[in-house]
């Protein structure tokens, strides 16, 4: 026999205390691994959503966090709007002219190029109108470019794909301006299929809905982005909903001119009459620029009195640093304390068993075991408990991820595999916790070292 087999036999003889001590260690380590995994998923989710595929969000002056939350995550209260004509400042000369001709209305110097158009050459500007809801989900009025030009994924190189159907178009002969695309989670929770009709509402407590239906022509594949929780309707149809006509405002006071919010006359659902440019507003414009032009554009927009430009990545990483990481450290501190408690339980478990085992220790000494042999046996026992519990906890902590993929993947878009270590800290923290468990065996080992053979025999 060797010291290891003696230690193993000692542990297996006291099955229940050994199992309970090991379990407490396993639970501690599993908690730490779980916290690391969850915070890893949260960070990754933040990174994925922060990696939105555009550099700037342009919206009304106000809180940059609110504008980001509203636009990227579809959270928080909708912000104020900016004029549609301001959005047209991101268009090149011919595009602006074409858009004016397509929509109609009042626009100064329609033939000139947009003031910011030079900054987004090779990029894009996509408008978003928000404020309405489809059931509990945000309703976003936007252009087909939202899915044609935006990309997603870790490297921001994946096109949006449709699990069913297609993207909505500017105008269709079947549905006019009233087509919609819904995210995977919206379709699943509302049990929507192609050709289902959805009605936008203001999200008010009375549940009042607009009476104009939008036909679902596409259901997105799951992307793991907030878009899974969005219902996207054609911006042209959005403008034609009741109450979405922007009133004229007094140039000096900014007050609404009463009776000016008049919707255009349309004879049927398939009418091609659009809301004029001067009656339109947008909540946000998603802007992608080439290279470093975004910084200059952001500065330029922020100098204006009517809008602000925020960098969503800066806002999101700021939030991550400010809130998510401190919470992660707090959770880690708590779970590490749990592990220290587990280590103390190893100490107490082995130490208490020492009283029962003094005679056994004395017998081994009488058979020729040195004090070092006895110390080593006790230390090996604590190593086995700490490592055994630690490995069990590590396996359990990692197994939770794959087992919960069914529930977490749709909402986070992050698939957790058993061996995907989501935190750089894990290779240091877990062995560290096991080491604490091993150190907990030192005190009982010293007690064993000092056992008097004569008194214990």
């Amino acid at each position: 026999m060797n010291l290891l087999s003696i230690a193993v036999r000692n542990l297996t003889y006291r099955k229940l205390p050994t199992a309970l001590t090991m379990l407490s260690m396993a639970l501690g380590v599993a908690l730490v691994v779980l916290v690391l995994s969850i915070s890893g998923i949260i960070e990754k989710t933040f990174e994925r959503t922060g990696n939105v595929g555009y550099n700037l969000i342009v919206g009304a002056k106000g809180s940059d966090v609110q504008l980001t939350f509203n636009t990227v995550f579809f959270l928080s209260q909708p912000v104020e709007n900016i004029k549609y004509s301001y959005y047209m400042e991101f268009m090149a000369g011919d595009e602006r002219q074409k858009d004016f001709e397509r929509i109609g209305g009042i626009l100064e110097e329609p033939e000139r190029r947009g003031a910011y158009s030079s900054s987004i050459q090779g990029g894009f500007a996509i408008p978003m109108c928000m404020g309405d809801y489809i059931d509990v989900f945000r309703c976003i009025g936007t252009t087909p470019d939202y899915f044609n030009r935006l990309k997603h994924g870790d490297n921001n190189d994946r096109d949006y794909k449709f699990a069913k159907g297609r993207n909505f178009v500017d105008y269709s002969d079947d549905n006019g301006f009233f087509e919609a695309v819904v995210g995977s989670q919206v379709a699943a929770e509302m049990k929507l299929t192609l050709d289902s009709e959805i009605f936008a509402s203001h999200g008010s407590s009375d549940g009042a809905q607009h009476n104009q239906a939008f036909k679902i022509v596409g259901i997105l594949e799951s992307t793991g982005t907030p878009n899974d929780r969005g219902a996207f309707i054609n911006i042209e149809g959005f403008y034609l909903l009741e109450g979405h006509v922007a009133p004229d405002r007094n140039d000096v006071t900014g007050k609404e001119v009463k009776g000016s919010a008049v919707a255009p006359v349309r004879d049927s659902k398939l009418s091609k009459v659009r809301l004029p440019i001067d009656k339109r507003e947008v909540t946000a414009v998603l802007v992608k620029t080439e290279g470093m032009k975004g910084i200059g554009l952001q500065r330029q927009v922020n100098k204006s009195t009517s809008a602000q430009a925020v960098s969503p990545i800066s806002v999101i990483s700021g939030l991550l640093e400010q809130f998510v990481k401190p919470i992660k450290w707090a959770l880690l501190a708590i779970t590490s304390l749990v592990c220290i408690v587990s280590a103390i339980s190893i100490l107490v478990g082995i130490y208490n068993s020492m009283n029962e085992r003094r005679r056994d220790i004395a017998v081994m000494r009488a058979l020729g075991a040195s004090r070092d042999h006895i110390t080593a046996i006790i230390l090996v026992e604590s190593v086995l408990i700490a490592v055994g519990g630690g490995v069990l906890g590590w396996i359990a902590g990692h197994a939770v991820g794959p087992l919960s993929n069914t529930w977490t993947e749709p909402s986070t878009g992050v698939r957790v595999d058993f061996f995907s270590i989501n935190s750089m800290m894990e290779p240091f923290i877990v062995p560290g916790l096991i080491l604490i468990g091993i150190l907990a065996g030192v005190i009982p080992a010293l007690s064993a070292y000092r056992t008097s053979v004569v008194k214990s025999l």
Partner: protein
Amino acid sequence: MLEIRNLKKSYAEPSGNRLLILDIPQLDIGEGEQVVLRGESGGGKTTLLHIISGIVAADSGSIKLDGTELTKFSEPTRDRIRADKMGYVFQTFNLLPAFTALENVRLGMTFAKKKMNAARAKELLTKVGLSDRMHYLPSQLSVGQQQRVAVARALANKPRLLLADEPTANVDPSNQKRIIDLIQDVCREESVAILLVTHSDEIANRFERVEKLERINHAFAQRTAASDL
């Protein structure tokens, strides 16, 4: 084989005075010799076995085993010599409850410098009549069987000297004879010397040489004289 000269051991009393327990001018045991040590309870018999085995250090004197002076060695060296050259049988058997009969015997081999063949453990258990109980835990063995395992364990490393401290005190009379026969036969077969402590006349009569501690231990005479005063 074992030579003891001027061995002294005392303990501190609660009053602070030192009580001389052992004062043995000379005690020799020859190779393979089988010796019984008798004496009153508290006379120092167990202490003498502890000192010879190196569990307890003597105050002074000399103990030589095969010409090697044991008292000069450090505790770890005495532990190693005990594992290599001595076997110990206790009054209460002291088998480890977590280990089977076979493992208890092999445990005796674990701490020795010379590595014995694992087959020897089985051979010894067969010799003591427990070939069919090798994988039994001590709790599954009778008292007599447990002591036979203890004998096999003490002989596992082919010791030069077997120290036995009242090995049959807790055994019924029918098993007493069997265990003593076993100890004597195996030790004779393997040329192992025995120093066996007993209170039993019957057992003592089975040995050719019987030493009374009162005779060889001068501390006893000193204590008796002191109490008479």
